[in-house]
């Protein structure tokens, strides 16, 4: 099935969870990354149980701190 990550189409296996997708996408420090699926924030403890569906739109939101001194 196909999902969109940011503005990029991606093919993933049926039954892939948000937690698995973070691994597949090699997202660094996933604990400090906010995930949204179809305009809904996914709680960190719901990543294992949130199964992605065909056509889902996933966003990873990263902390960015600098201002910068």
């Amino acid at each position, binding site marked *: 099935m196909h999902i969109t990550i940011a503005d990029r189409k991606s093919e993933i296996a049926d039954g892939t969870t948000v937690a698995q997708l973070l691994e597949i996408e090699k997202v660094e420090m996933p604990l400090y990354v*906010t995930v*949204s699926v179809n305009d809904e924030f996914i709680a960190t403890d719901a990543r294992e149980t949130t199964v992605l569906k065909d056509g889902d739109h996933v966003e990873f939101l990263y902390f960015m701190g600098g201002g*910068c001194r």
Partner: protein
Amino acid sequence: MNFTNDQLARYSRHIILTEIGVKGQARINEGRVLIIGAGGLGAPVALYLAAAGVGTIGMADADEVDLSNLQRQVIHTTADLGKAKVESAAETMKAINPDVTVKTYRSFIYSGNILDIIKDYDFIIDGTDNFPAKFLINDACVIARKPFSHAGILRFNGQLMTYVPGAGPCYRCVFREPPPKDAVPTCRQAGVIGAVAGVIGSLQAMEAVKFLTGAGDLLTGSLLTYDALKNDWHKVRLPPRRADCAVCGAKPTILEPVDYEQAVCDLKH
């Protein structure tokens, strides 16, 4: 307000824009914007807002100009080394545009002074370099019902979003809590390209001008990200406000600004 001939000439490129006009320029000249942090982001914001004629610009920063700042903090010059950043920034802004009243706050922003400082402003710019300060600014702006522009830069990347009371999620809705100290690298540790600060800071100035004039759409409910190496821009549409957000949610638990431990030690460097 009545413009002098000099002002009509100075702001002519704004006034000729349908979306701005004389009315919009008057709003800019009557506008009050606070910039927290006179660094990489604060520098371009201050330059553009002073040039645009924003009536009152507040600048808060406790630091002095250091040689390692000059690669990106374009409001300071080599001659300003050792000078208080707010003084150096104020001098440059006044030199660009004598119409502008600059108020300087040479102090750390913390839970005890932030509400008192932001209350006199229409729009706040977060140009700080650390998460405790970013969360503090968010919480204070939500509590005081002040709109603000959040931004962050690192290496070749930058991002920004705008919060307006009642419109879209706040910074805490998206990121919940500051990450543990050193979990996420800072510019000091990981570096940053000077021009990225210019790109993102200029966008923050743009948000302030759009807010003051009412022109166009603000970055509320979305986070704009920039990857300079890939020339990639992406506007993330953010989910709506979290009902359980600790500060802007239905039953907030943060009712006054709080300091996170990291703030004080980080701000001193």
